[in-house]
């Protein structure tokens, strides 16, 4: 049988703009011409000849794969690996630079919940508008209207403008519309990151039902490894715009976690180009020690840990007032923990060109199980020396924080606590 999606050699190139941020105004171009007429002409000429030093960025490079009907495929990879670009190309929002994709069914993309929702319109009106944007016909929407409202659980507010909705209601309604579209192929991008845990569960359940019962095909981008494992039979691992692995989900997720080990050695760190800062002193290694002083591969909730950052400075360079900041965020980029020697006003005067700075966490590790990102920022004399935003990913495994065998399910932190009763 013909595959439902067949991707052949897709590449997508972006030209990185010289101007940072925002949009180009004609004024800027005109003032540029006025300021430097000759270099402008030179650049134009170069462009015409095709020799301009444009900065190119390949968000996707030679991607080929095919998907059978009824499969749920996960797409994982670090930030900037090209996951979202791949979905955008598949959903025709932006065309590929080269290659060809054959799609053999009705496709609907859910890159964001509530695309096209208008704040002034009521819930009822938005269901129709959003449904139409997602590719449903008016009749389909009318037929499913009651189910949509039911699933979202907003019966009472159906005629209220959505600008008066709580963000939870908004998301529930939006997802509910999306969940009731009946395309042959559904592309989903990290949309489950919004909404409360119960609703997320409900959505996952709905998506699972849709693939298994109705034989629909789903391509699912997520940072939530649990969700990927639950929903997807196979998984694509993307790295720098290329597919590095396409296999059974469990294998791919394991590889992903192994390829992003908690401990990082100088050999791999030296090659990294995604650094910012002066670079007189650089992060040369990173690892986490447990209470016994042993390096660990993952953390366990409720244990004690020490974060260790190795540094290397340029020859004969002895920076003063060195401080380090560690920022831990969840997979959706929300910051959760900030540890910084600036906060404790502990900075160091470096006299040896390499060494290790340790940060002992004086409490049980509070994060619940999941995958987290870590960023490291190194300063000296208030100047940024080395900053790696997507430094690494690590896994926290479930641990018995309270020694009670009871685990938190729906909130990110454990808190050390002690309860007592005072009676009058």
């Amino acid at each position, binding site marked *: 049988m013909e595959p439902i999606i067949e991707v052949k050699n897709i590449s997508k190139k972006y030209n990185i703009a010289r101007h940072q941020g925002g*949009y180009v105004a004609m004024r800027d171009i005109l003032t540029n011409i006025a300021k430097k007429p000759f270099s402008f002409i030179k650049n134009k000429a170069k462009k015409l000849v095709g020799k301009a030093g444009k900065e190119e960025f390949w968000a996707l490079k030679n991607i080929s794969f095919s998907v059978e009907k009824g499969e749920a495929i996960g797409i994982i990879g670090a930030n900037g690996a090209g996951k979202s670009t791949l979905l955008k190309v598949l959903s025709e929002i*932006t065309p590929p630079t080269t290659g060809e994709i054959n799609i053999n069914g009705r496709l609907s993309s859910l890159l964001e919940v509530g695309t096209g929702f208008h704040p*002034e*319109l009521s819930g009822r009106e938005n269901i129709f508008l959003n449904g139409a944007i997602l590719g449903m016909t008016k009749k389909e929407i009318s037929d499913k209207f009651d189910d949509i409202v039911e699933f979202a659980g907003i019966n009472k507010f159906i005629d209220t403008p959505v600008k008066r909705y709580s963000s939870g209601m908004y998301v529930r309604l939006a997802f509910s519309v999306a969940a009731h579209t009946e395309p042959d192929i559904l592309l989903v991008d990290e949309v489950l990151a919004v909404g409360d845990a119960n609703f997320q569960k409900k959505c996952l359940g709905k998506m699972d039902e849709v693939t298994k019962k109705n034989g629909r095909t789903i391509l699912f981008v997520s940072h939530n490894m649990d969700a990927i494992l639950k929903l997807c039979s196979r998984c694509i691992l993307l790295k720098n715009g290329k597919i590095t692995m396409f296999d059974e989900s469990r294998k791919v997720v394991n590889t992903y976690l192994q390829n992003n080990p908690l401990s990082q050695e100088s050999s791999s760190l030296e090659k990294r180009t995604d650094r910012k800062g002066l670079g007189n002193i650089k992060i040369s290694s990173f690892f986490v020690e447990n209470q016994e002083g042993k390096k660990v591969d993952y953390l366990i909730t409720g244990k004690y840990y020490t974060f260790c950052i190795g540094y290397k400075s340029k020859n004969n360079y002895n920076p003063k007032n060195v401080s380090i900041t560690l920022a831990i965020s969840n997979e959706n980029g929300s910051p959760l923990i900030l540890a910084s020697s600036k906060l404790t006003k502990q900075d160091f005067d470096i006299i040896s060109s390499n060494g290790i700075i340790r940060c002992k966490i004086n409490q049980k590790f509070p994060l619940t199980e999941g995958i987290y990102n870590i960023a490291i920022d190194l300063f000296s004399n208030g100047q940024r020396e080395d900053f790696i935003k997507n430094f690494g990913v690590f896994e926290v495994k479930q641990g018995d924080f309270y020694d009670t065998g009871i685990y938190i399910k729906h909130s990110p932190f454990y808190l050390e606590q002690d309860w007592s009763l005072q009676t009058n």
Partner: protein
Amino acid sequence: MSNYKKTIRPKKTFSLNDIKEIWQYKELLYFFTWRDLKVRYKQTAIGVMWAIFQPFTTMIVFSVFFGKLAKMPSDGIPYPIFVYTGLLIWQFFSSSLSEASNCLITNASIITKVYFPRLILPISATITKFVDFSIASVILIGLMAYYNYLPNLSGLLILPLLLLITFMTAVGAGLFLASINVKYRDIRYALPFFIQTLLFVTPVIYPASITGKYSWILALNPMTGVIKAARAAILGNAPINWTLLLISGLTGLTALIIGIIYFKKTERYFADIA
């Protein structure tokens, strides 16, 4: 299922498939228009009356200052009817043009998240304005009754043609400007000024006849032919100038074709920079 078979390839130019696709997406076109109409007068006290209020007030102000005080000639027609006919068509044109030019930016959040033929956005913007035009036309009927002016019924038959030319010109220029607007937001600021200037080089508040031997310059502006023909058709003040109308029609068609070609050519990067 085979109905939905499609192939995504790098570059696209305008083809007949685009028209077929717009037809496929006609319900979305309807919903976009419906949304714009619904949203526009939400939380207003007099609601849809605004569609009438604006041209009506403009007509009164113009009638007092240009008609009464400046004694602007109006080819023997009562000035209020004369100017209102021009204003109606002019406002349809200018508001369509400006909505169409901005439609990609106002809908940027949708463009970057969902696929649909982008062409339906400017078309829907223009249809929305057509509804306003129809509502405001009621006033013209009232005015004609007030001045005991019988419309030239056979002349009314030409009205759809005039609206078609206006539509082609507005959508054509709108498509072109919208494509530029995505990249250079200057358009957003230049456009109101440009439209205001255009009002004075179009015979809306004055008859084309006062330009004398230079009237051929005005003929390059497709709206000149449309407004002149509309007056001739509805008010019967002069025979319809078919040559002028033909020029207008051709200019409008050219604008539409250039607009579509340019739009399709630049369409592929809309989602990347919108």
